[in-house]
């Protein structure tokens, strides 16, 4: 892709946010869209958000499960940013109309107590940098029509992020083994998914180490106070207005998202 095409693709996605009308897969208009192009398109949208006064308050790591990586034909996760306006409070009413095709994923959110700058960041470095953990429900969304995403599409589209509902029970990492933290996902009280923390890239801490080391290639890093969503524990589930979703995590508490038709 040439420079003007990066900006055109970014503008297309920014327009989809405003109109809530999804766009055709970018790969159709830009068949040579590679991973570097896709991250460039993502970065141009982040620039636009920051010019409009939004702040980056964290990151997400996606495609962390073997199943998703196989589906996308990749062997690595991908990443996107969390803006301040994407972070929602536990039990807040969330208008589904603010999204295009939202889905939820339960995650163990990690809040950093110090900067982490790669390369060479290990799981031990991440463990030492964790300020606290919070139960979270990530709301993923796609500005690409019907989720018909290739790896390039999802990276360009901020790793298909939408929002993150953070629980209000921060817990220290201590000596807990995040790989084996159990999680149950409920839709209106019925169990629809279960899993262990290790479903996220083998270990959520490893996911954060990967992120810090990958960001080093973009000459940036993770910062004190950043909220990191390290990857989903279950398969993503589509949501509808009127539904209440919650996720319980062993030892970490519960987070709840209430979906409504319109802003209340």
């Amino acid at each position: 892709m040439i420079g003007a095409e990066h900006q055109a693709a970014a503008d297309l996605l920014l327009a989809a946010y405003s109109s809530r009308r999804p766009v055709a897969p970018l790969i159709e208009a830009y068949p040579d869209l590679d991973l570097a192009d896709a991250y460039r398109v993502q970065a141009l949208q982040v620039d636009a958000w920051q010019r409009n006064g939004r702040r980056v308050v964290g990151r997400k790591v996606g495609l962390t499960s073997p199943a998703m990586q196989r589906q996308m034909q990749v062997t690595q996760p991908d990443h996107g940013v969390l803006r301040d306006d994407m972070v929602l409070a536990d039990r807040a009413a969330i208008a589904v109309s603010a999204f295009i095709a939202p889905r939820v994923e339960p995650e163990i959110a990690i809040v950093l107590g110090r900067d982490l700058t790669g390369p060479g960041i290990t799981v031990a470095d991440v463990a030492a940098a964790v300020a606290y953990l919070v139960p979270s429900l990530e709301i993923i969304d796609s500005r690409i029509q019907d989720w018909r995403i290739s790896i390039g599409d999802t990276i360009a589209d901020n790793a298909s992020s939408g929002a993150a509902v953070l629980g209000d029970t921060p817990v220290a990492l201590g000596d807990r083994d995040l790989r084996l933290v159990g999680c149950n996902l409920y839709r209106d009280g019925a169990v629809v998914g279960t899993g262990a923390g290790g479903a996220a890239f083998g270990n959520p801490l490893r996911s954060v180490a990967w992120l810090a080391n990958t960001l080093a290639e973009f000459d940036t890093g993770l910062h004190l106070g950043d909220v990191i969503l390290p990857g989903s524990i279950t398969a993503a589930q589509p949501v509808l207005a009127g539904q209440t979703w919650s996720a319980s995590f062993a030892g970490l508490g519960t987070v709840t998202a209430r979906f409504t038709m319109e802003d209340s």
Partner: protein
Amino acid sequence: MSDWTVDRAATELLSCEDERRDRGPITEDWPDLDVETAYAVQDEVLRRRLERGERLVGVKLGLTSRAKQHRMGIAAPLTAWLTDAMVVPAGAPVPQQRLIHPRAEPEIVLVLGRALAGPGITAVGAMGAVDHVCAGIEIIDSRYRDFRFALPDVIADNASSAGFVTGPVLRSPDGLDLSLEACLLEVDGQVVDSATGAAVQGHPAEALALAANSLSRRGRSLEPGWLVLTGGMTDAVFIGPGHSVTAHFTSLGSIVLAGG
């Protein structure tokens, strides 16, 4: 009319197992095989196992996930018998030499301190009979080609039972939240799946109560000292020679099973 009988089906399934031979579903040869008759076949196979010296050590539940029940068109799991011949000792490989196409699935195993006789057993009442809890990996090996079967077939085939390993840690159920007890499943060191006890009929205690209540309809109760394999937490994974399956549990330790 079909010339199949309970005796003939029992003979056929036992010889499939002994000869490591798979076959098509019995229901294709014997369309009248219903659930009740299928359980009679299962009981006849057990009778012959005991006659040849095996001992009854417990029960297993099959089809405990809602997804599998939906596929089979049933609302409750099925029960089947466990004998001492199915015990795979800790550290031993999958006994490939006697199996057809084994798969492994992680389970929560409950060991009873006292008898549980249905009907009317509730989950909370059932947990009171549990002496301890441990991790397990069940090895299943359907006698039907490609694991293709109708409900009566799999019931007659003792719910595809073949073997089981129990884990290294015995825990009192007191203070254990089994609905959030997680299992991380690895094949050859790569995470392939994960689940919690909630994947088993909502809670393993619900599976135990269902086992007690459905056995009462078969004129039996769960006995002290019996093991109850409460049902696969994840989908089963194939385990061939040269491969290994590891199940890490939150508070019940880890089990490593070599494929032989």
